[in-house]
């Protein structure tokens, strides 16, 4: 213990520097992905999710895209069961179901098209403009939700968020992207509305 204390005393300025460094990492980029709307609709016996996510890309990401680097987008959806223990301030949450939709967006130079490919299904679509591609990416339409997990809609919540899969980037770019705020575009978890 004495040793820890003495080391701390000795290198206090260094520790303070580390603390400041970690704080600087915590500051996020000004603009990031945003879930604009998310609704769960009951159709027949099942439930479907409709959502709209805005993908404002930073110039750095656009530059990478235009240089042929494929960018992977992740859309994470989860159903949580939250039991309030102390009002709304402290809730015990349990994930009942979750899924991640992965999309790869890349630029096809020959056709001058942006190709959006669902990595789970290998289904791909091409768009003449980036905006069109991102628009299409941001539209989640009639995504089927597992009905067995939705038996009790009062305590079950659906959360959605989107982010870039930085680990899918080419290796040389990865360290830079991981520590750069220009690549930190994750949206916070958003709650879907029940209709």
């Amino acid at each position, binding site marked *: 213990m004495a040793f820890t204390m003495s080391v701390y005393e000795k290198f206090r300025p260094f520790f303070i520097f580390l603390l400041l460094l970690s704080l600087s990492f915590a500051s996020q980029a000004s603009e990031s992905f945003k879930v604009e709307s998310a609704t769960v609709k009951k159709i027949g016996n099942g439930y479907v999710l409709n959502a709209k996510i805005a993908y404002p890309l930073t110039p750095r990401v656009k530059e990478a895209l235009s240089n042929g680097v494929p960018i992977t987008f992740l859309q994470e959806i989860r159903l949580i069961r939250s039991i309030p223990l102390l009002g709304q301030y402290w809730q015990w949450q349990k994930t009942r179901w979750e899924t991640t939709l992965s999309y790869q967006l890349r630029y*096809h130079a020959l056709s*001058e098209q942006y190709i959006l490919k669902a990595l789970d299904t290998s289904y791909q679509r091409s768009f003449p403009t980036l905006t*069109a591609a991102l628009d299409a990416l941001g539209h989640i339409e009639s995504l089927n939700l597992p009905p067995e997990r939705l038996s009790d809609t009062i305590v079950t919540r659906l959360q959605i968020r989107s982010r870039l899969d930085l680990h899918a980037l080419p*290796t040389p*770019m990865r*360290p*830079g992207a991981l520590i750069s705020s220009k690549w930190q575009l994750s949206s916070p978890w958003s709650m879907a509305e029940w209709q």
Partner: protein
Amino acid sequence: MLQKLKSGATPYYSIAFLLLVLAYLLSAATNDSSRLNDLFLIIFGLGISTLILLTILLVRSLHRLYKNFKHNQAGSRLTMRLVTLFVLLILISTSIVYSFSIHFLHRGINSWFDVEIEQALNDSLELSKTTFDIRRRTLLRQSRMMAGTLSNLSEINLNYSLRELSDLSSAEEMSVWTLDGQLVAATIQNTKVIVPDKPNEAIFRQLRKQQDYISLDPADGDRLQLRAAVQIPSKIIGEDPQVLQVLFPIDEQLSVLAKTVQEAYTDYKELNYLRKPLITIFTLTLSLIVLLTVLASIWFAIWISKRIVHPLQELADGTQSVASGNYNTHLTTTGHDEIGFLVQSFNKMTQRLTKARDATQQSHQLLEQQTNYLSTVLSSLSSGVITLNDQHQLKTSNETSGRILGINLQSYIEKPLVELGKDHHHLIEFEQLISHEITNKQSGWQQQIELLLEKRSLTLICRGTPLPDNAGWVIVFDDITALMRAQRDAAWAEVARRLAHEIKNPLTPIQLSAERLQVKYHPLLPEDQTGLLNKLTNTIIQQVEAMKDMVNDFSDYAKNSELQVRPYPIGTLINEIITLYRSNREHKIRLLSTLDNIKVELDVTRFRQVLHNLIKNAIEACEDANMPVKIDVDYQLIQQKDSAEDMLELTVRDYGPGIPDEMVNILFEPYATNKVRGTGLGLAIVKKIIDEHQGTIWVENKQPGGASIQISLPITRASL
């Protein structure tokens, strides 16, 4: 445990190991195929922090080294020098390798890219685009024509016409959509596909602007297809406009070529784009490894320096402790190199030194024993033994020598012999004799010397023997005073006995004969002759009488009678004698002392003779010199602290002419007299009696005149 971790080499080993693992992970993580991709940031962060930690530890180590160096601790200088040398070597060599590596890295990566290749790729892409452009325009035209034929057809006819057109145009898929995106009709060549490909929103948006759409579309499975979307002209006003989408396949060969061009172009572009991060990451990895190497090398330099210096330091400490007299120093052997050999030699040396010291101590002890033995022998000798060095300084003396000379000789050790003469006048002759002999003689000598001490004379026989190698002399001297006296006494006793025997015996017949002559021839001789006869015979008789007296004195002197000692008050005895002499009024004899309770063990008769002789002698001396007879008799008790005996000192002092100097030494010997009368045996008899009482007697001339005879008699305290 913590202390051990803190101080030992464990943190260095663990960190070095950790860094090696990290370097491996890092190199593995830079490969795409690695599963460690997700851990990249953690690995990198951990690596950096470990490096920082290692740096801190190294800095601490170096700081400690510098502190030792500053405080001038043993071995720190050499360690510092070695470390500096190693670090310099490491830094220089690593910097060179590092800078060249960075240079080659940059050059290597940059050499992948070439302006001409880039241009060729761009051109090939452009060429491909142009190729497809022609085809696109043809197909767009074809699509418009097909759309024209489909204008205002009923749904059944539309389906039919679509199939027909599809067969004719070899289109893969044809579909009719409303502008809202509702499917109207479709025909698909591929039987596996059920739902036609819906044009995306961007296409609809373009079509709504009355612009036809044609594009090269990358389809599933890396295929290429051409997608054309045109509005179907409507002849009925107000009818919802419809859209025809046609997907044309591109023949396989072209598709493959186009794909190759696209992939090469994209790969090249991506690679070009990744050039900077690639260089950065390679530089970073290289730097990390170089830094690791440098730090590890510095650590190793410190470690190896300490390892090299440690035995040397131990050696230095060992040498110091040997220098300060601790020969039991044993160093632990470190290795089989030269230093190990040195340590072994040092250990052997200390072992030998210890043995030598032990041997010296033993011989020293032996020498001490010998010296003790010798000094015991010397001290028990009745002879005085002194040694002098070649500078004539006193080196040793035994107890007896001091006792004989009556001084403490130990205080003259290491001092020149001359000092002895300076301090003690009665030893001047002794000192001069020895100095003279040892200066002039090379071999042994023997001399007899008579010294006049304060109260007695001392006869010494001295023998000098040179020490080997001219180291000095050993002088042995014996007190032969008693021996000489005994010899003399024995000689005189023999003379007296002979005289008594040879002379006394004829004297009686001579006397008787003379008396007979007188008696017998007195009546026969004439009157005038008788006077002469009487005179002659009387002379014979008187002289014979005188001779008888003389012979009796001799026999007294020679007599060895047993002493009849008993305690007797000395004051009473003296008074008795003095009273006898007081009858003559001209004799002034005083007894000064009034102590009357002192009893002395003595033979009263013989001591009475002593007093008689002394007083008579004093009176005669005064009378012979025609001086008034004045005699003082005194006695006193002298207490001796360090002896069981006290001394009685008896003095008979006259105020006569004194004793001639030449007589002082021989006064108590027979016939040592300058008087006209007397046999010369009076004082000799006194001396003899005093000797028999274990006392001493000596004579002193007093100022302004007269002599004093002093007697010292031992008295046991019990007799007081």
